[in-house]
């Protein structure tokens, strides 16, 4: 295990853009819209420009690719790409536009294989086609679904109005239940050309067809004339090892994996469409439900994205120092919570059935007690606000520290935190490491399994412990810092071999590093006692026009929010576009290639080592 401490690198993006414009004078032009960044690339030259951005300008890491529908503003659809350097620095944003009727943008899958799922998602939700993409199938919905739901002119069955608060929910409005306005009393609607005579479910069939399965036995004649056939095994969507409702369609030769295709969307609950109906602040509790194990850091990412937009206006008040301290405190505690959980479940997948998980969960519960005392909820904290946090940490909290005699006691919060950070958690980690890190079974099952080389890790746009386990010291807290991380002293643990064991160890070390950060946070908390933590002013204001991409190093990787505020000259109250760059979703791109050649039992572990959460994968 290597500990790296990469320093923040200053990249002058404007200089890069100038050079890019020099090189492609006709294809590249500045995005001059109010509040927008980056360049607009002519779509016929997109692949060429992207290759140049990657190879010549060194932006080798494509963080996010997403679509926006500008119906009524420009009558165009747009793809937005955020590229970064893995050595650090800000983003190079480039966009490609296409007319709304017959939208088509060349696929970048040959430049960055990591756009695979993202392009499929855009096809699914926006109906933009990507010539060059080898498997442009729906990913979140099923094949045969009526329409592309994220288009602005597509209305859902329970559609009431474009923006909340809806009339029906407003005290002065006419109160009704939306079911009453739907002929089926359900959340369904059918196209006018519904053919009642042919109502069979074809979604499974088209799925298998798209995977190229159903191969003739004769084609697979092995050496020596032995006829072999491939076996298709479905893991999930109901399967204990998939950590939710994830599904893998695995093709086996004997017990060896030939192909693995992730099938997702079983928890696609339309965050983004609902997010466009909500006001900016109303989205905050929805972010909790993305990565539902680490709600606090989800909040932080969204707050950062909207604060970037608010800062464009004149009346914005940035968070106070105490608010920043509390934010980092919460984000790092969340990291510990998440890693404890994921380490427990990784061992669960290895067959250490629930014992390590139960031990880890005991510690987790104590942190949740602190969250509950502060935010009012154990899991869905809904704690951050634009320009601060919801409220200060309480004076005293109730918790069960000693699980054995099971008594709820009253503690001074600072004492509770100090004891937890300085004594209990380090002690627990000592014990945990002693039991597991050199465990023979653990090592046999994980060392050299599920290897992801560094260059592939970058190409697949993986992030978080998966990327760092492969030896890339890319951590947004250092590479593109936010909040008060620049003044804190901590290191980035990095693996060497990119196998499951390295990812496991990266998480163990990250807990240690988080504890190191938290130890520096405690005196800052004491020092800033009594300061304001939020200005209520930011609650109600309209958000200035523009776009922003707020990203944080979530426990699972880079969580990004691409927020567009448009459509209202006075400053909209609702986001025009609210996209979530989910680490779990994009990390899964690497699952198939990583699993190839290993056994079925290893796949379960490889998936566990990616540490996905379905709320975020499917959104």
């Amino acid at each position, binding site marked *: 295990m290597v500990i790296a401490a990469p320093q923040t690198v200053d990249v002058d993006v404007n200089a890069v853009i100038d050079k890019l414009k020099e090189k492609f004078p006709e294809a590249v032009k500045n995005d001059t819209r109010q509040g927008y960044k980056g360049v607009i690339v002519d779509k016929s030259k997109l692949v060429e420009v992207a290759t140049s951005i990657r190879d010549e300008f060194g932006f080798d890491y494509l963080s996010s690719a997403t679509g926006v529908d500008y119906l009524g503003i420009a009558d165009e659809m747009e793809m937005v790409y955020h590229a970064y350097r893995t050595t650090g620095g800000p983003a190079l944003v480039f966009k490609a536009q296409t007319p709304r009727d017959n939208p088509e943008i060349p696929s970048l899958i040959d430049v960055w294989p990591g756009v695979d799922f993202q392009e499929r998602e855009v096809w699914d939700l926006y109906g933009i086609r990507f010539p060059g993409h080898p498997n442009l199938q729906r990913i979140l919905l099923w094949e045969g679904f009526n329409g592309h739901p994220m288009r602005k002119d597509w209305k859902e*069955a329970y559609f009431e109005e474009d923006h909340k608060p809806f009339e029906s929910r407003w005290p002065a409005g006419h109160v009704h239940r939306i079911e009453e306005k739907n002929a089926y009393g359900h959340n369904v609607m059918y196209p006018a050309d519904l053919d009642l005579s042919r109502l069979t479910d074809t979604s499974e069939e088209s799925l298998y067809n798209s995977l190229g399965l159903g191969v003739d036995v004769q084609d697979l004649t092995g050496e020596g004339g032995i006829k072999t056939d491939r076996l298709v095994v479905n893991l999930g969507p109901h399967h204990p090892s998939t950590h939710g409702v994830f599904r893998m369609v695995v093709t086996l030769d004997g017990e060896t994996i030939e192909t693995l295709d992730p099938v997702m969307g079983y928890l696609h609950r339309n965050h983004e469409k609902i997010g466009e109906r909500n006001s900016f602040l109303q989205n905050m509790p929805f972010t909790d439900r993305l990565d539902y194990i680490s709600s606090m850091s989800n909040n932080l990412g969204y707050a950062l994205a909207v604060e970037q937009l608010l800062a464009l206006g004149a009346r914005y008040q940035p968070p106070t120092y105490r608010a920043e301290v509390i934010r980092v405190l919460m984000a790092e505690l969340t990291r510990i919570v998440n890693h404890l959980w994921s380490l427990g479940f990784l061992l669960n997948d290895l067959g250490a059935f629930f014992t390590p998980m139960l031990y880890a969960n005991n510690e987790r519960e104590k942190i949740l007690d602190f969250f509950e005392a502060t935010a009012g909820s*154990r899991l869905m904290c809904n704690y951050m606000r634009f320009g601060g946090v919801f409220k200060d940490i309480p004076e005293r909290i109730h918790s069960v520290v000693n699980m054995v005699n099971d008594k709820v006691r009253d503690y001074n919060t600072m004492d509770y935190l100090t004891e937890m950070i300085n004594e209990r958690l380090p002690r627990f980690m000592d014990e945990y490491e002693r039991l597991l890190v050199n465990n023979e079974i653990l090592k046999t099952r994980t060392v050299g399994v599920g290897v992801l080389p560094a260059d592939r890790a970058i190409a697949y746009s993986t992030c978080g412990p998966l990327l760092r386990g492969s030896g890339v010291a890319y951590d947004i807290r250092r590479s593109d810092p936010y909040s008060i991380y620049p003044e804190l002293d901590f290191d980035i643990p990095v693996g060497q071999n990119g196998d499951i064991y390295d990812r496991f160890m990266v998480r163990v070390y990250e807990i240690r590093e988080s504890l190191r950060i938290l130890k520096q946070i405690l005196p800052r908390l004491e020092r800033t006692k009594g300061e304001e933590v939020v200005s209520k002013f930011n609650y109600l204001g309209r958000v200035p026009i523009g776009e922003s991409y707020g990203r944080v190093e979530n426990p699972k990787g880079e969580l990004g929010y691409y927020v567009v505020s448009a459509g209202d000259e006075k400053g909209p109250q609702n986001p025009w576009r609210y996209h979530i760059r989910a680490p779990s979703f994009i990390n899964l791109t690497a699952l198939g290639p990583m699993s190839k050649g290993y056994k079925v039992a290893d796949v379960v572990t490889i998936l566990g080592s990616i540490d996905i959460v379905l709320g975020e994968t499917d959104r």
Partner: protein
Amino acid sequence: MSDLNLRELHNTEFPIPDELQSNLAITSLSKVYNWSRRSSMWPLLFGLACCAIEMIGTAASRFDFSRFGMEVMRGSPRQSDLMIVSGTVTKKMIVPIVRLYNQMPEPKYVLAMGACASGGGPFKEGYNVVSGVDKYLPVDVYVPGCPPTPQALIHGLIALQKKIDGQSLANMDDVPWYGVGPSEPTPIPILGPDVIDPRQMDIIRRQAELAALGKPYGVRELPAPQMKAVVAAKGAAPAAAAADGGEVDAAKAERLRKREEALARKHAAKGE
């Protein structure tokens, strides 16, 4: 089982001598049956979304629902008695959920955990969200919360135990599985242009007929009087009502016939 308290089961209609009080209980079959069943509820190991995290938290050592005989979470629906629907039910997921429910052996129960499973919750308006699992499955207990705390889930489980205590073997209409003959499986939804509930075929057909007449199809916004007409049509339109009623009667008659057959077999066996 040293803590077994026979007095709990004892039916007071029949006197038992004092010295036998802790060794003997005279009770009804229903009571013993319900008591043993509710004390060994095996939930399906089945997490959907956020609520699943709290469900695991409930199973873990701090809250520990094994105190209620529920620690054996089974991965297979064939071995489980209780489905805890822990999270948002999407249209894509309702198909496997109904299939899993059909695979569970009777007696089986469903607990809707959290706002989403109970009624769609914060995601109700989503285009891929089923607004409550009760649109498809019969739900026994609803637990509110987003997510419900472990305490709330345990409260829901205790409510379910109380419900089981009240069921009767003698009353065949009480719960479907005490009747004679197999129960009907829940029809599996179809993923067409949108999810299609086979039980709604009638209304879908009627809407299609309306569409053929050039009337708005899949009406979303209805003026109040027209709305009333549609609501009335649901229950009282002559043709539709006859069709609906006919089906129900047929099913009832079929059940009665099966029951009589089974009784006849039973009598025949006795006669021999």
